[in-house]
């Protein structure tokens, strides 16, 4: 490149003073490509499909009808599954919160960075292990002659093997195992935002460590707890594999019933249930958005 070229080029930059990524992003044409291409992909494949099933939930063979919604909101089979889904999601959310909170607290408060790394790494390892594999593992562990029963019988806690599989408990255990890393990560990033000096101040003023925690740290972490719990709740509503394998036929979750309806070609019912589930998700996201913003985008 000749000197003149460089000169004219740098002159150009001084005139605009815009960094490369901005210029790339703003170059005519390119700007539309980087925005529209991904947008188009998601809209065409997902959003339009969703509108398609919304239509199916209202339009049967004889035109517009509310029958499908009436059916899923009144028939005991459907209402039981709805309640069971909500119940399972509540249990799993609370379990994740109670189990992850102390670990997240310790990892944020640990003086040595290595402690923090070890705790975070340890809890995130299962996050990187195939979900299907983990559920399979729980299936093996909770078998009638599985590890859990062998342990219990070895310690004479029970003499007869206990039926763990095909219970709501089994589903909750495996779902908690899967969702705990999500809860841990977002609790951790929320706790990092809490000013450590406030707890120190409480200690200096003579509060016992426990008081300092209960009166200062805990209240400050409540908005984070609220947001993270809602996120885990939303995620647990849509679980399909765990209930399909570990739950009995009597207490399924909504995802399983949707899939069954699809398989037996009750597409309209499946569509109506899909929207029921989607509305619940959006209501919760809406509530969360009002108080704490978008809970699915990490705040950094």
């Amino acid at each position, binding site marked *: 490149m000749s000197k003149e070229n*460089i000169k004219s080029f740098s002159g150009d930059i001084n005139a605009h003073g815009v*960094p490369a990524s901005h210029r790339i992003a703003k170059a005519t044409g390119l700007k539309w490509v980087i925005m529209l291409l991904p947008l188009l992909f998601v*809209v065409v494949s997902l959003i339009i499909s969703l509108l398609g099933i919304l239509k199916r939930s209202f339009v049967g063979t004889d035109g517009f009808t509310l029958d499908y919604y009436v059916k899923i909101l009144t028939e005991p089979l459907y209402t039981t599954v709805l309640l069971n889904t909500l119940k399972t999601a509540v249990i799993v959310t609370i379990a994740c919160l109670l189990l992850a909170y102390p670990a997240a607290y310790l990892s944020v408060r640990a003086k040595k960075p290595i402690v923090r790394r070890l705790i975070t790494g340890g809890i995130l390892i299962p996050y990187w292990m195939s979900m299907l594999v983990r559920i399979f593992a729980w299936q093996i562990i909770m078998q009638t002659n599985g590890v859990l029963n062998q342990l219990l019988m070895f310690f004479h806690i029970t003499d007869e093997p206990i039926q763990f599989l095909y219970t709501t408990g089994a589903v909750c255990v495996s779902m908690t195992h899967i969702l705990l890393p999500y809860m841990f990560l977002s609790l951790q990033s929320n706790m990092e935002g809490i000013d450590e000096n406030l707890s120190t101040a409480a200690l200096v003023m003579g509060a016992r460590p426990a008081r300092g925690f209960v009166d200062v740290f805990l209240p400050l972490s409540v908005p984070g707890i609220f947001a993270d719990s809602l996120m885990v709740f939303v995620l647990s509503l849509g679980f*399909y594999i765990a209930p399909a394998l570990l739950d009995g036929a009597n207490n399924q979750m909504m995802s399983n019933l949707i*899939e069954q309806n699809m398989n037996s070609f009750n597409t309209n019912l499946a569509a109506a249930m899909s929207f029921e589930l*989607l509305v619940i998700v959006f209501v919760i996201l809406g509530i969360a958005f009002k108080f704490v913003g978008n809970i699915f985008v990490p705040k950094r």
Partner: protein
Amino acid sequence: MLYVYCILLIIIMILPALVIIPQAFTSLNYFQFPVEEYSTKWFDKFFANEQWIVGLERSLIIAVISALVATALGTMAALAMNKLEFKGKSIFMSIMISPMVVPVVVVGVALYTTFAPIGLTNSFVGLVLAHTLLGIPMVFVTMMSGFANVNENLELAAMSMGSTPIGAFFKVTLPTVRSSLVSSILFAFVTSLDEVVVTTFVSGANTKTLTMVMWENMRTTIDPTLAVVALFMIILTMGMYIIKEIVETKSK
């Protein structure tokens, strides 16, 4: 106290993997704890069964393609989010993360109803499209925080040294977000590899992925071959985790 609790929690979190791995080496036809006699017969069974091998190959190919496409699209969207000013940014963001927020079964139903009439169900292309869709929000979220850390003065410096905007982007901007980029690809890869629910709707007899075959076997014939498959899955996904950690440590 808290330390003891954390150690216990981590043990319980890792326990399922510890239980399943030895079972791949059992000599019995069922699962027994602890494994008393070791053998590799279930590995032989795995490699002798074409269903598994074909499924594994298919899974890997689909995961690689969809991870790359998802990374390209997700990165574009994150770039648009960070560097462009346009109306409806929050709507744009909501749409880009929607595949992660909408319950997977609903995504499955939606894709099935669109794919079936145009012959994309039970097809390779259909699976790649579906897995790409699921990978996009992972990439989008990861790259957004990556781009937020880019030092724009470096780009300016590169351009004042005579680099074109596009050259500066590839020489300066991309290397600084390299670790986010690697994480994105790995996230999308693992998402595709591990995907079952949407795949049950979109795939068919000719397009079963490894996890689909595993899923079907888990519901019918549970034998230690499944533990072998589980071991391979653990190696693959943990390998990705380790690569990610190495890249992140190096770039610090």
